[in-house]
């Protein structure tokens, strides 16, 4: 039976192809995978003990039926683990623990949503976009990248073919808005009427600095925001306490696990 309980499974690579600076990998797993957008997997796929730890990757897509599932990841090569993943071929085995963590809370259908992805952070927010598309939710996308070539392919973007839905931003102005995605979000926020702001929720994933900036803009305008954080992880399922981030707890602060209480947190909680 398909289950949202985390499982440790052996997968087999179906496709692992480069798209600009990103790789997209589809993996066959023993059973259908159900997940909440924003949830992730711990992935390792190399022999030997160096690197030792699995790598956290957002679940980009998943599906399948009883006894035959698939899961997709989108990743960027940044170090040894992701470089090893990028070198894997069709048919190679992969070890995966999934689904993990606390995902986005998509809640009531009458809300408007802005989904913000900085860098490869889009891989975490697109599944939320896909879910909202299905429910015909009212959402817009803000995608930031250093330059034009580092934006995700248009066909991956949920609602990417609908006019006005997608706002591209580049630091060098080679596509869309010229400047950081956070600035674009803030400017648009300022253009909204109070009633529009009242309906809005922002979901975001990207570099910590970007998230901090947007969360300041959003919270100052009373717009609720959910942020998906990253941190180095050993286990990914809450047993090592390695991945904590400081959150407000009443007057004080406490360390919460990004892999368990997160990766998605209410932006108000975060001690940046």
């Amino acid at each position, binding site marked *: 039976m398909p289950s949202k309980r985390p499982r440790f499974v052996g997968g087999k690579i179906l496709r692992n192809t480069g798209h600009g600076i990103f790789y997209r990998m589809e993996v066959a797993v023993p059973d259908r995978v159900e997940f909440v957008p924003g949830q992730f997997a711990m992935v390792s796929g190399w022999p030997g003990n160096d690197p030792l730890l699995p790598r956290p990757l957002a679940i980009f897509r998943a599906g399948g039926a009883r006894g035959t599932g698939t899961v997709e990841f989108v990743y960027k090569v940044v170090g040894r683990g992701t470089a090893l993943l990028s070198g894997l071929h069709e048919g190679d085995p992969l070890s995966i623990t999934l689904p993990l963590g606390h995902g986005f809370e998509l809640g009531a259908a009458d809300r408007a949503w802005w989904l913000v992805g900085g860098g490869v952070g889009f891989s975490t927010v697109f599944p939320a976009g896909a879910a909202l598309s299905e429910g015909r939710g009212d959402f817009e996308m803000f995608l930031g990248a250093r330059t034009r070539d580092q934006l995700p392919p248009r066909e991956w973007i949920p609602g990417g073919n609908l006019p006005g839905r997608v706002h591209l931003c580049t630091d060098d102005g080679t596509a869309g808005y010229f400047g950081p995605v956070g600035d674009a979000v803030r400017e648009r926020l300022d253009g909204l009427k109070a009633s529009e702001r009242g309906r809005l929720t922002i979901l975001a994933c990207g570099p910590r600095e970007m998230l901090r900036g947007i969360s300041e803009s959003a919270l100052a305008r009373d717009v609720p925001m959910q942020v998906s954080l990253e941190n180095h992880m050993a286990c990914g399922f809450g047993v*090592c306490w390695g991945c904590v981030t400081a959150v407000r707890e009443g007057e004080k602060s406490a360390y919460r696990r990004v892999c368990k209480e997160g990766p998605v947190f209410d932006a108000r909680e975060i001690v940046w």
Partner: protein
Amino acid sequence: MVTPAAPPDLAVRVGTVSLKNPVLSASGTFGYGLEFAPFYDISRLGAVIVKGLSLLPSPGNAPQRIVETAAGMLNAIGLQNIGVERFVAEVAPRLEEAGAVFVANIYGRTVDEYEAVARRLSDLPALAAIELNASCPNVKEGGILFGSSPHGLSGLTRRVRAATAKPLWVKLSPNVADIGSMARSAEDAGADAVSLINTIVGMAVDHKTRRPRLANVTGGLSGPAIKPVALRMVWEACRAVKIPVIGIGGIQTAEDALEFLLVGAAAVQVGTANFRNPNACVEIIDGIRDFLVREKISRLEEYRGGLLS
């Protein structure tokens, strides 16, 4: 007609504690045990050793807390934990319900705190043993003061020994010159068993940012990288004391576990391996059983301590 052979007997005894098999989860790598319920029935383990408990809840160290190293990792969690009261009230009953044999790993900033935690746990009928962490390298008061000299260790052990009737396991630090004499101090002070090794103190820096990678600067090294050091120390401890020795350090596979049992360990603990493979412990149990079947050994006890020279 061939009668199928009886499955091999994996039972071991750690002093007065009987365990159905020699595979235990190492403290700090297995949460409070319940987190593994989605993966398998934790009553299958020889025992579950929970995250180190202190008298009061402890916030732990600032992040960054972990760094990957070659075939290993450094951690400086700083013993973040819910404190002994919440453990007794909320976690212990659920572990009992799950049918798990469980052991509490404890630490204190002072000997008094160690005593108080041990005393509070002594009321738990289902608790199989107390493991005294005399060796956490990541909190200044976490026992390293007690754990790095035979004298400090025996003083601490004696006091905690007197404070509880539970079997007392003393977990040794590898950051010493002579592990055998540390094991003997624990034995002389009344420990029912010693477990080793805890992590080796290490450090990582970023040559570009010029900063330590851990907020705590140093951390504890664990994983396959340390296995040869752990195996040597376990072998030395086994030769130094008569009480049982529990082997820990870099165990990832049944073969690794068998190596520790071969040099004389009464049981083993699996730590870092749980992170990459949540099923590691049960795969190790199955692997030990398969090995005994293949080698036609009917009882693990026949194999244990059988190193030839």
